[in-house]
């Protein structure tokens, strides 16, 4: 950590978004994570994404559990809502918050320990419910906060700093989410903001559960030779299958795309995700094909990244439940509460 706070002085030529804010206005306190932690880069990518989306800070809710990753919501958008919940319980707290106020934009920041070990039950059920949120996993393969034991995402054969290689099968959050029917699944790397920022923007704007699994190296406990989640290893085995641009509603598509390369996906609010396939073979709309592709490349030791799956058909939690458009938190008490006469009628059904 640093003893001085990041000075408030900024570059006078910084671009401003539609709200007249600069990226500096979306910052939080200075990180207390280790210098060089991938999570700090993910934080910077989130700041860039919400800046570019012109997000009003008070319309954003930052949710987290416990772990290095879960500290990070303190490091971005100081003026938004935040809830630092119990270990692994971020999804259920977010479900409650979202149930009460569907108008807010939810970003949950979790880690491989928080989501794939203690909170794996919560994680899978949030996907099942298609909870409308951006769910980030800062995935480094170790429990950094407790000094580097392997986590559930550690690959077989990956070496710890000291001791024996990992022998247990890893849980891959992307394949898991795919098998559970998540509707937006991406994977990226903290060291590749060009890919990560649009991926986060799409995830925030997607209507439903959006998973962004980010390889985010633990510079202290898992950045050595023999680690499969180090900066060097990730870069060496990085397999980039799609690129994407996020294009806000009513904005002209300026970039030129080669014939057959681009695949536009329109989101519920009229914005467009322009998918660009780096690998022609890849079909991000087919669960089965995506699953096979991921498995094959995983077996070849590669880390497949990009927007890996998107489904616009499945409805999000509120729509599945048939809820009103107005957030429940904003409804007057008499419309939320049917009153004692109605209650008696309901109870009579069970008499």
């Amino acid at each position, binding site marked *: *950590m*640093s*003893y*001085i706070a*990041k*000075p*408030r*002085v*900024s*570059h*006078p*030529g*910084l671009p401003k978004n539609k709200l007249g804010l600069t990226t*500096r206005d979306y910052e939080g306190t*200075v990180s207390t994570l*280790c*210098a*060089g*932690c*991938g999570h*700090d*880069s993910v*934080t*910077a990518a989130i700041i860039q994404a919400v800046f570019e989306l012109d997000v009003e800070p008070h319309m954003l809710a930052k949710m987290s559990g416990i772990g290095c990753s879960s500290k990070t919501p303190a490091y971005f958008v100081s003026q938004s809502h935040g809830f630092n919940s119990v270990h692994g319980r971020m999804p259920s707290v977010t479900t409650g918050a979202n149930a009460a106020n569907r108008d807010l934009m939810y970003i949950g920041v979790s880690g491989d320990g928080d989501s794939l070990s203690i909170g794996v039950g919560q994680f899978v059920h949030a996907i099942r419910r298609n909870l409308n949120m951006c769910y980030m996993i800062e995935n480094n393969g170790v429990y950094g906060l407790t000094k580097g034991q392997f986590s559930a995402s550690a690959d077989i054969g990956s070496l710890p700093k000291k001791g024996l290689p990992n022998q247990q099968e890893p849980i891959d959050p992307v394949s898991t989410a795919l098998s559970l029917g998540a509707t937006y699944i991406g994977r990226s790397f*903290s*060291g590749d*903001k060009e890919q990560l920022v649009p991926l986060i923007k799409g995830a925030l704007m997607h209507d439903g559960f959006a998973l962004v699994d980010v390889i985010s*190296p633990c*510079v*202290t406990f898992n*950045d050595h030779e023999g680690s499969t989640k180090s*900066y*060097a290893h990730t*870069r060496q085995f990085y397999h980039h299958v799609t690129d994407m641009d996020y294009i806000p509603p009513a904005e002209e598509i300026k970039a030129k795309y080669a014939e057959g390369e681009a695949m536009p996906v329109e989101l519920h609010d009229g914005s467009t995700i322009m998918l660009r396939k780096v690998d022609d073979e890849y079909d991000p709309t087919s669960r089965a094909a995506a699953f096979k592709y991921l498995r094959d490349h995983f077996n070849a030791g590669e880390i497949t990244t990009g927007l890996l799956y998107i489904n616009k058909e499945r409805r999000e939690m509120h729509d599945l439940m048939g809820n009103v458009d107005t957030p429940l938190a904003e409804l007057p008490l008499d419309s939320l509460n049917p009153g004692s006469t109605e209650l008696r009628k309901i109870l009579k059904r069970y008499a």
Partner: protein
Amino acid sequence: MKPTDTTNPDYFHKVVDCQWACPAHTDVPEYIRLIAQGRFSDAYLENRKSNVFPGILGRVCDRPCEPACRRGRVEDKPVAICRLKRVAADHRDDITDQLPKAPAETNGKKVALIGAGCASLGVANDLAPLGYEITIFEALGATGGLMRTNIPRFRLPPEVLDEEIDYILDMGVDLKLNHPIESMKALLDSDEYDAVFVGTGAPRGKNLEIPGRYDSDRIHIGIEWLESVAFEHIETIGERVLIIGVGNTAMDCCRTSLRLGAKDVKVMARKPRGFFKASDWELEDAEEENVDIVVNHSPKEFVLEDGKLVGMRFDVMEYNIDETGRIDRGKAVDEVMIPCDDVILAIGQDNAFPWIERDIGIEFNEWDCPVVDEKTMMCSRDGVFFGGDSAFGPKNIIWAVAHAHEAAISIHKYCQGEDIGDRLPVGLNLSTQKMGMHEWSYSNDYDPAGRRLMPHVDLKERFKKLDIEVELGFTAEQAAKEVERCLNCDIQTVFTAKLCIECDACIDICPVDCLTITHNGEEADLRTRLSAPAENLEQALYVSDDLPQTGRVMVKDEDLCVHCSLCAERCPTGAWDMQKSHILLPYAADEADSKETTAA
């Protein structure tokens, strides 16, 4: 772009904008840190090494450092560098025992210095400690040259001047006052001196040849008039005074007039604001004293009635200024008569060498200035050197000091029979400032405080006498605040590409977005691909070697870096480090030492 060559001392020197802009290259951040530590004497001596006259320059320097100061780009106002120099001078203890001393025995070489102004004194300062026998010839009855004659006492008290000049004279310099050199030929032919240095300034005030100029004795040449005031030959002036010209001499003339009894002083400018020669701060100080600055008035004629000056006629001008900010010659749209009792002409000054014969091997150019080598300061006759305003026309004190250091090196080498063109190169030392995990040897936090305002003597009080110094100097509290505004630009961000793991930590933490990791390209292209606009082409891009993992490069735009050290603190591998760059400027003493070392 090619990786930046940081072994060239100029690269990091340029990052220290103030030091680079200073003709004498005073190590500004270093002395500001010494002030911050309360080490005023050390700060004074650090200054004296390069600029010789800290107390004088702390009051009246032209301060090229301040417009260059990075703080002025990051925020609005630069650090008050000049006035901090005065803080060092004001608060120093007796430092006489730490000054250079002349050796007990001279080296047998004699050097004549003509003129006792800043240039000659600077040469004496460098050569006396090496054992040279120095003689200074001065036409007037006092030392200091224009520092004494042209700068009014309310800006530069004579005690300050005397003290710093005495430091030099006390090294055993032979000073001959009231001793004008009337023939350079005679001096050279006498063969008494091994070398001669000319530091006679630019002593001739420009005239204004318009009707009526010679019909009244109430029309004065600015620098001559200031000199007469300084020597108390003139003690009064009329109530209504017009100053023609709007340079720094004009500012001294108008403010001096107020102190001699003038009630209505107008500075008449030919051009609009923004095209004035005077420094902003001198303008501010004059306007604070209710001097009226009248723009767009071009002098036409002096108006006399019965042989008495009653006013001046002016053309009222109109100008066009194009998009690049250039102004045209303008046209007269009206005419106006402005009544006055005295007129002071302050429209510039020229060199004058009536005492240098033109057939003694000293070549003069088309402007009647000597032809002088800019590096060695020697003219076309071997063994004759020039410096200060007499070399290249009117500049300022700090330039004269810079010339003096170079001339001293040349004179030394010339007297020792060495090649004066073969000089020691500028050197560079880099040393890490890391003291611990999050600890640096300097105050790295950014202090958002604004520039402190210099306290002035009350308006009424200051006019009572001619020699009441207007500026009071910073108080201890003000100085303590102002030093923290310095960005420590000499504590350089030094990058080692092979250590970088491209984690982006430095890029994410940089408060002014000056770092980028990207694919290499030509400079013009790279500048469009950086984290924040890099539009200041004066400021370099620091480009690294190829990074080990991706082959991209680290690019730093030096323009707005606040040297806060966060990049180095957030770097997990020590690829970034904060290292103090110490620019080693060779002086005559270093040249002497280097030969001794070689001989040994």
